[in-house]
């Protein structure tokens, strides 16, 4: 086994059981304030609806809770610890001022049904963010309501559907390139559409000839990620848009990879009709171990009538209000107005950057990805030689000869102090290593990553078992996911007494 390189070293991390295992009757981490109203008899008020016990809910003290969750936290990898090269996930730095402003009293404690006269602060934040996102995307109107990217996709497709219905028929199919993220086909199905696969050409881009033959009056829209999941900008984007529009179809853009474009090019300018953004990717809101996200959907003027209700409007006196009178709207996709706390953070990020910072961010993201590409080309197989933007996709073709697959390399990367890259897609690259460094990495961190990847490639040649058995330095080794799926244990239960 090679000595692991400069970045990582072992350290003690402490064992910690389940919180239930620390519980014993009479311990408590709470105290209620003295009541200023008369006590009540719950049995009298609730009758048979009164609950008598909360079963085996835990009873622990405050210090135990602090230690419990602090110990658990040390078992996680996080951006704050190092690079997260997950392709198409845009794991960038989460600025701390965002967290501070989101916790300001009026913003954190504002009830969603506050009268609009005393909710102007929240409405102004939503309006300012909307204006910024419309400008960044080059679109005409926006909804902030969807709670995440996939929810935004659904909202966008419902609007596509409503648009076509207004012309007489919702149409039947959505075209999706074979390089797309899996949520695209899942969303199309949820919106009631059949999915038709669109093959990529040898450069990893949409095959315009295939699109020409597959595009007809049954196709409602093409769902395109641009740059696509190979990191390749669809150079024929104008032809693609024209082909769609000529047959009455719409061009949907999945904005997952918007971090390659902000300040450099606007989807609205290259023919996109509707697109979603991921505030938890491009706009730096924290991923939080899997959410909350936020997935605003921006549209061209033609789709504006179909935006979910309510829509923000400006009163003649320049105060802001919600407009609920939207007869052509697709309806509501979520209660209230969306993940407002994420709007606050995203707007703070845009303000911290300004136009120059946003452009520099995009440039650095593309610079970083190309630096890695250059550093690893040859060590790993690069199936598509087409120039790439903010991410790069290698394959495990060279390492597979030794029986080592992308997931093994990814797991070995953990021992070098990095989070793995994306392995699950794009499906058009068997054994994909999909790497997106984002702009948040310094040249030193990038060099460490390249060095780690090259070292692993050497290990594959000299000592493949080390890679196949990885990781070696974590609390737990690989867990058997298939056994877990066969006989799932999804909750703690008290031992039978």
């Amino acid at each position, binding site marked *: 086994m090679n000595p692991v390189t400069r970045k990582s070293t072992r350290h003690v991390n402490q064992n910690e059981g389940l919180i239930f295992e620390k519980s014993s009757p009479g311990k408590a981490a709470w105290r209620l304030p003295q009541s200023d109203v008369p006590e009540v008899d719950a049995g009298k008020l609730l009758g048979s609806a009164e609950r008598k016990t909360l079963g085996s809910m835990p009873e622990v003290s*405050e210090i135990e809770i602090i230690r419990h969750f602090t110990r658990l936290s040390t*078992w996680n990898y*996080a951006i704050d610890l190092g690079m997260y090269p997950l392709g198409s996930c845009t794991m960038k730095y989460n600025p701390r001022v965002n967290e501070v402003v989101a916790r*300001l009293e009026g913003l954190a404690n504002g009830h969603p049904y506050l009268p609009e006269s005393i909710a102007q602060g929240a409405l102004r934040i939503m309006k300012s963010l909307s204006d910024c996102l419309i400008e960044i995307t080059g679109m005409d109107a926006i909804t902030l309501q969807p709670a995440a990217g996939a929810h935004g996709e659904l909202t966008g497709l419902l609007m596509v559907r409503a648009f076509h219905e207004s012309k007489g028929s919702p149409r039947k199919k959505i075209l999706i390139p074979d390089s797309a993220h899996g949520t695209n086909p899942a969303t199309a199905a949820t919106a009631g559409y059949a999915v038709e696969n669109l093959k990529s050409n040898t450069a990893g881009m949409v095959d315009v000839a295939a699109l020409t033959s597959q595009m007809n009056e049954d196709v409602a829209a093409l769902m395109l990620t641009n740059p696509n999941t190979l990191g390749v900008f669809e*150079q024929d984007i104008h032809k693609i848009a024209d082909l769609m529009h000529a047959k009455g179809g719409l061009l949907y853009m999945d904005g997952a990879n918007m971090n390659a474009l902000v300040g450099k090019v606007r989807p609205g300018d290259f023919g996109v009709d509707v697109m979603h953004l991921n505030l938890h990717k491009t706009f730096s809101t924290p991923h939080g171990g899997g959410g909350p*996200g936020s997935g605003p959907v921006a549209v061209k003027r033609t789709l504006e009538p179909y935006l979910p209700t309510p829509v923000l409007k400006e009163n003649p006196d320049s105060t802001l209000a919600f407009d609920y009178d939207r007869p052509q709207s697709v309806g509501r996709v979520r209660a*209230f107005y969306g993940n407002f706390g994420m709007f606050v953070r995203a707007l703070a990020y845009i303000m911290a950057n300004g136009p120059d910072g946003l452009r520099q961010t995009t440039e650095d993201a593309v610079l970083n990805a190309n630096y890695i590409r250059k550093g690893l080309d040859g060590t790993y197989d690069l199936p598509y030689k087409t120039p790439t933007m903010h991410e790069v996709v290698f394959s495990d073709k060279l390492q597979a000869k030794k029986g080592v697959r992308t997931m093994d390399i990814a797991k070995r990367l953990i021992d070098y102090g990095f989070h793995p890259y994306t392995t699950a897609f794009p499906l058009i690259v068997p054994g994909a290593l999909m790497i997106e460094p984002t702009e948040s990495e310094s040249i030193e961190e990038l060099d460490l990553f390249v060095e780690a990847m090259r070292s692993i490639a050497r290990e594959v040649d000299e000592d493949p078992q080390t890679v196949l058995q990885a990781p070696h330095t974590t609390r737990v080794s690989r867990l*058997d996911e298939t056994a877990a799926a066969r006989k799932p244990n999804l909750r703690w239960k008290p031992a039978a007494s």
Partner: protein
Amino acid sequence: MRYLPKSPADRQSMLKAIGVQSIDDLFSPIPAEYRLKRDLKVPRQMAESEILDWFRERSRENGEGYATFLGAGAYSHYRPVIIDSLISRGEFLTAYTPYQAEISQGTLQSIFEFQSMICELTGMEVANASMYDGSTAAAEAVMMAVRLTGRRSVVAARTVHPEYREVLATYAFHQGMPLSEARFTGNGRVDLEALERSLTPDTACVLIQSPNFFGTIEDVNAVAELAHKHGALLVVAVAEALSLGIVVPPSQADVIAMEAQSFGVPLGFGGPYCGVIATREQYVRQMPGRLVGQNTDKTGKRGFVLNLATPEQHVRREKATSNICTNQALIALIVNIFMTIYGKTGLMELAKLNLAKADYGVRELGKLGKVLFSGAPRFNEFVIETEEDPATINTRLLEQKIVGGLPLRKFYPELGNAALWCCTETTSRKAIDSAASAIKQHGRREEVRDMEKVAL
């Protein structure tokens, strides 16, 4: 730009290493005619202090310092301070979805504990790792019932949160699922006879909420019997999670769709919140969203891992059970910490205190108007019908920095001058008394006017 860890010299040396002249070369794949040749029209780059100032100003314009009687699916509860200390740890805040189990055990174990406590509180056998919010959880639970029964239509009680019903209508309409509504009776509960009439052999499920939008606890037993008699499933939405501390959980339900915002999640003008779906073990494979399971590694050590990952979209694509990908992990962590803090005895005592506050509120405010739906038990919300338009009462209350109950006319025109009031442990007796005297002022003004008439 202060978030970017590069010097100009770094950038130059990287360009050189890549073998290009300038950064523009890396953007050459973008056709020149589309490249933006100007600055984006967004606010100029600001210092941290300027950003803070701007948002402080917005915060002041947003109900700062107001006491509120608003509930209706978003509840004001005290948030113990250790919640924010713990969730601010970068290892939780800035971690990705725990697909790589070996370096995500913190998030995974925490979700496992969350699932376990949700099961304990709801009386269900399995719970998922969270959904976007209560409204989307309810819609997803209904779609789950459609998949489970192979039937297409849905009956929703009119006492379900109106915005939850709107979300369901959006999903149902585009899926071509017939959706009907069952009215309520004078006790504020769903009308069982009307409900039975709307059940057909095609009804996949009945959706109710308990406590419902009026704060009234539904007769879940009776509704469950009806639904099951007709081969339909029962989906129960719980919007006020704290009610589970003192109200028997709706465990006769087949699926529970919950909003856990009450458990330590800031009101935050409506989000992010934390939806959850809980159900019976036999239905787990049709449950959307992520699930964490306990397992062992090759040395026999306990570990946790994302389970039943096959429904997820990157594997199943268009055949996935749902398109949900990102959920609300950090908010689920808040909920988990809150449930741990209050635990077995605290949640019950806290719920009891809510019951007491609402009881005081309904007595005091009830003297000045008509308490609707008093024939059934309630948790911490109640409906008061006044002679005067509640919007006018609220305008008077705003002068005292109090936000009164939610006027119901917008959602329930049939209820006229009724408003939905909520009292939690954060509602002071003083605020309740002030609200009562504001309602009373109407009467006094009338008296004054009458006396003026006499004097003339």
